[in-house]
């Protein structure tokens, strides 16, 4: 056994010659994450491949040593940063050593990149930009768009800031470049129905819904005869319509169309109201997701009259209505943070809505110089160049910035009344305006993300980054571009689209990728494969099946969560590197009388513990963290093991519901914990000593509170 302890440049006090027993060779280094550190680790690897690296968080260490089999002990973030002295750190290292003794190494695996084409989902600016770059690099691109025309949100906007240019300046050159590239196939009216397979060979089912217009000479005669006028983002158009982007053909909005047939009669070319939908399957090596964001539905904001009062509207609807000359406001209030930074709605800041709100104010003043515009805000967040936009507005007559979040908005006659406190003067204020613009935040396109097996994260609309070739997750050729990952302005979206294109290009340029995702090993000798099969339905990915009377793991599907290992009652199924024995060995090494043993999911709660370290929070010293791939991996055996060592409490911490990185590992944990609590109470362990809690990866404070409660430092709630 080789143990490397990193002092992180003297940050961690390591005694002169730390002793971990005669069979452990200890090397202390100043900085493992350096060329020298890597060389030292490589040089120390002899026949004995068992290696323990004690240093910073595995999130960082994995970037340097992900390809070498090792146990990582986080003595920095969760050691010194959480106030542990050498005693505490020594215990942590012992845990790592015991775990390393019991764990089997993760096998290196390979994946062939057999398909060299790429699918781009969504043809807004991000998708167009990604497709353009990939096409120019010579890759075959399939660009699919759900709407009948490309352009996405930007095509619906009036002007784009900070420059204040019309949307066409950004969009048209891009559309032309994409439409003119032979490598790019654009498919409008098309949805991705299903994605199967893995990097290098994704099999994608596409469904193209009817366009109605089969051949088009763009005469436009169909539009005046159409009797239906659906409202598209605040502005009415006909059910048969065109958009000045691409393709240069009309299309029918079948949700609004009543099939009266008037367009068919007048059309000199060909319209078919009964055109069937088509489905096809394509194979690609990588996927770029550029589906953008979803506007937070204002109907949820009942105190603001959202969805009930016509004059209270979304920013995009307002922008289009003034651009189209439908409304002529004299007095407007823009409500910033409408539903954002709010536990009842969106807990996070969507970053761009401050800018959007100011833009609506600017567009109003540009068109109606005499209009009065109020902007109410909690904090005005205008970064970089946008400070200029703020200054321009601030200096204009008739623009008033009001600090304070409105409490309620209601109708009084044909006016809208807003109640707010002007915090700067401390006065209670009632305003009567013509229109209220709600600058709402955004939500991720959960539907597409879920279809791709990508979890959404509560910390941000979407926190999934950089896992593409992470050493212990299945390599994915899936890249997020633009606002699909996080609310972004046009400029940032385009930049991120290029990053995604570069990522996809990197994968497609290889013939083989290697990775180290742990998969369950099945001991055929013990497994009653043909007859037990309990594990099969518990796999979130359908990776388990009985082949030739033997339980078999499809390594291309397995993501390494270990849910099946917990299910196997015979112990025949064990997840590599996260075996029951290995985790139990660590538990037994670190747990002692009065300790709080926390099994923390490496995607969320474990990082919350890191965060607590970075923030130097006052974490009770009794905490012993065991890193697990998912709360769904936590077995009753491990919990019993902790209590058998005298633990005061056991905490299982995972991702919030619907954010599980393994689809539903955390909900499995819910039923396990319930049953376990009853079981433990029979054994004299009070239910409250086993807790399951959800943590965002930033919620260090919440983790501290929960651990403090469990350690008896905080009285629990209730009179």
């Amino acid at each position, binding site marked *: 056994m080789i143990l490397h302890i990193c002092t992180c440049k003297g940050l961690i006090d390591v005694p002169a010659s730390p002793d971990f027993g005669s069979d452990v060779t200890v090397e202390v280094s100043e900085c493992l994450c350096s060329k020298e550190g890597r060389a030292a680790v490589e040089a120390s690897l002899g026949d004995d491949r068992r290696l323990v690296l004690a240093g910073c968080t595995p999130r960082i260490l994995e970037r340097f040593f992900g390809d070498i089999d090792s146990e990582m002990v986080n003595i920095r973030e969760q050691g010194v940063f959480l106030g542990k002295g050498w005693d505490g750190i020594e215990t942590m290292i012992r845990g790592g050593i015991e775990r390393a003794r019991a764990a089997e190494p993760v096998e290196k695996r390979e994946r062939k990149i057999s398909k060299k084409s790429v699918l781009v989902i969504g043809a807004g600016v991000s998708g167009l930009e990604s497709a353009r770059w990939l096409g120019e690099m010579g890759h075959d691109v399939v660009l699919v768009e759900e709407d009948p025309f490309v352009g996405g949100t930007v095509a619906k906007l009036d002007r784009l800031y900070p420059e204040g240019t019309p949307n066409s300046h950004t969009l048209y050159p891009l559309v032309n470049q994409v439409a003119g590239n032979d490598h790019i196939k654009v498919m409008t009216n098309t949805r991705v129905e299903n994605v199967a397979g893995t990097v290098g060979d994704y099999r994608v089912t596409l469904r193209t819904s009817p366009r109605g217009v089969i051949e088009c000479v763009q005469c436009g005669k169909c539009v005046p005869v159409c009797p239906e006028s659906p409202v598209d983002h605040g502005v009415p158009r006909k059910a048969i319509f065109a958009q000045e982007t691409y393709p240069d053909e009309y299309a029918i909005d079948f949700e609004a169309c009543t099939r009266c047939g008037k367009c068919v009669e007048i059309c000199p070319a060909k319209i078919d109201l009964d055109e069937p939908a088509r489905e096809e399957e394509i194979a690609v090596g990588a996927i770029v997701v550029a589906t953008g964001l979803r506007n937070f539905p204002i109907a949820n904001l*009942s*105190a603001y009259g959202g969805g009930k009062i016509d004059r209270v509207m979304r920013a995009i609807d307002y922008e289009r209505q003034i651009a189209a000359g439908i409304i002529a406001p004299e007095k407007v209030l823009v409500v910033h943070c409408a539903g954002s930074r709010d536990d009842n709605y969106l807990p996070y800041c969507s970053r761009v809505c401050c800018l959007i709100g100011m833009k609506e104010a600017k567009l109003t003043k540009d068109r109606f110089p005499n209009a009065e515009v109020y902007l109410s805000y909690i904090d005005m967040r205008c970064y970089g160049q946008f400070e200029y936009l703020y200054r321009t507005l601030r200096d204009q007559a008739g623009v008033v910035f009001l600090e304070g979040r409105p409490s*309620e908005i*209601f109708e*009084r006659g044909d006016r809208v009344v807003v109640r707010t406190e002007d915090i700067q003067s401390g006065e209670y204020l009632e305003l009567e305006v013509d229109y209220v613009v709600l600058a709402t935040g955004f939500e991720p396109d959960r539907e597409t993300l879920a279809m791709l097996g990508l979890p959404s994260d509560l910390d941000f609309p979407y926190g999934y980054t950089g896992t593409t070739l992470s050493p212990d997750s299945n390599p994915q050729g899936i890249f997020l571009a633009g606002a699909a990952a996080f609310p972004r302005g046009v400029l940032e979206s385009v930049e991120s689209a290029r990053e995604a294109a570069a990522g996809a290009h990197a994968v497609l340029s290889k013939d083989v990728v290697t990775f180290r995702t742990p998969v369950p090993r099945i001991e055929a000798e013990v497994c009653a494969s043909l007859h037990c099969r309990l594990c099969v339905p518990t796999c979130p990915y359908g990776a388990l099946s009985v082949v030739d009377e033997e339980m078999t793991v499809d390594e291309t599907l397995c993501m390494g969560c270990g849910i099946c290992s917990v299910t196997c009652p015979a112990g025949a199924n064990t997840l590599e590197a996260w075996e029951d024995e290995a985790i139990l060995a660590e538990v037994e090494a670190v747990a002692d009388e009065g300790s709080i043993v926390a099994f923390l999911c490496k995607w969320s709660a474990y990082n919350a513990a890191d965060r607590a370290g970075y923030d130097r929070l006052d974490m009770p010293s009794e905490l012993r963290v065991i890193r697990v791939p998912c709360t769904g991996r936590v077995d009753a055996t491990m919990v019993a093991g902790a209590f058998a060592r005298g633990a005061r409490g056991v905490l299982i911490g995972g991702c919030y519901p619907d954010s599980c990185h393994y689809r539903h590992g955390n909900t499995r944990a819910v039923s396990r914990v319930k049953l376990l609590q009853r079981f433990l109470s029979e054994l004299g362990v009070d*239910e*409250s000593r086993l807790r399951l809690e959800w943590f965002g990866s930033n919620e260090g404070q919440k983790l501290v509170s929960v651990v403090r409660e469990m350690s008896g430092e905080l009285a*629990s*709630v*209730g*009179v």
Partner: protein
Amino acid sequence: MEYALFLGCTAPIRGKHYESTARKVCEILGVDVVDVPDFACCGFPLANASAEAAFLMAARNLAAAEEKGVGAMMTLCSSCAASQVHVNREIRSNRKVMDRTNEALAEFGKHYTGSIEVKHLARVLWEDVGVDAIKAKVKRDLSSLKIAAHPGCHYVKPGEVHDCFDDVEDPKTLDELVAATGATPVSYEDKKLCCGGAVLGFEEKTALAMAKQKLDLVKASGADAMVSICPFCSVMYEANQGKIEEAYDVEYGMPVLYYTQLLGLALGVPEKELWFRMNSVKPSEMLAKVVIE
């Protein structure tokens, strides 16, 4: 449907007409009420001095209801509803709270296992009896009446405590109950405005200003009467109406009925038994619009 009737402090003394009509409409609509003489204050006013003591007083009432062998409790007052529902919820959702509460109740030999459901009378009428069942029993035509319903705060808030049975930002159930009687609920601004009752003892001027605002808006809506479901709200709008008229030199003459009086009227209860003479603002003009027998 059987409920222990929780009278609270105000209704049985200052709102006897509310209590009496509540019992009457319950009888007609098939809601059985059981009296528990052991009920005392719900603890609401005491929370100002000691939240813990208030909690135990509410818990004591729950234990008393349980002792009586009823499964549910119905309150006449909205504040009683809020404190009883809240405490019930805390006890039922947290084992430790239940244990600690019972430890304290044991002092005088009471124990609560968490079996009681608590609802305000109006919620019982809306949820358990239902608007349709009420409509089916209406005997008098009240279609000529315009009624401004005042739902008050604790009938629906905190929303979570009351299982969000009504929309806290746009409470509708009381309007629906008014509509069920055949009368027309009128909409008016600031329907959710608090009556100020809780401030009355501490700063009368402020409390009256709050009540005045509401009376102004109700008056402007053209309503024939206001309807309340809480004796505290009624005290503010009705008993103090004269005081407000005097202080602000205005005149309202706005009758404030308990919903049960209006409902009783619709259900054909003899006028005498509706105790309109106990209302300090006499609803004679309003009654003149209704054909009685």
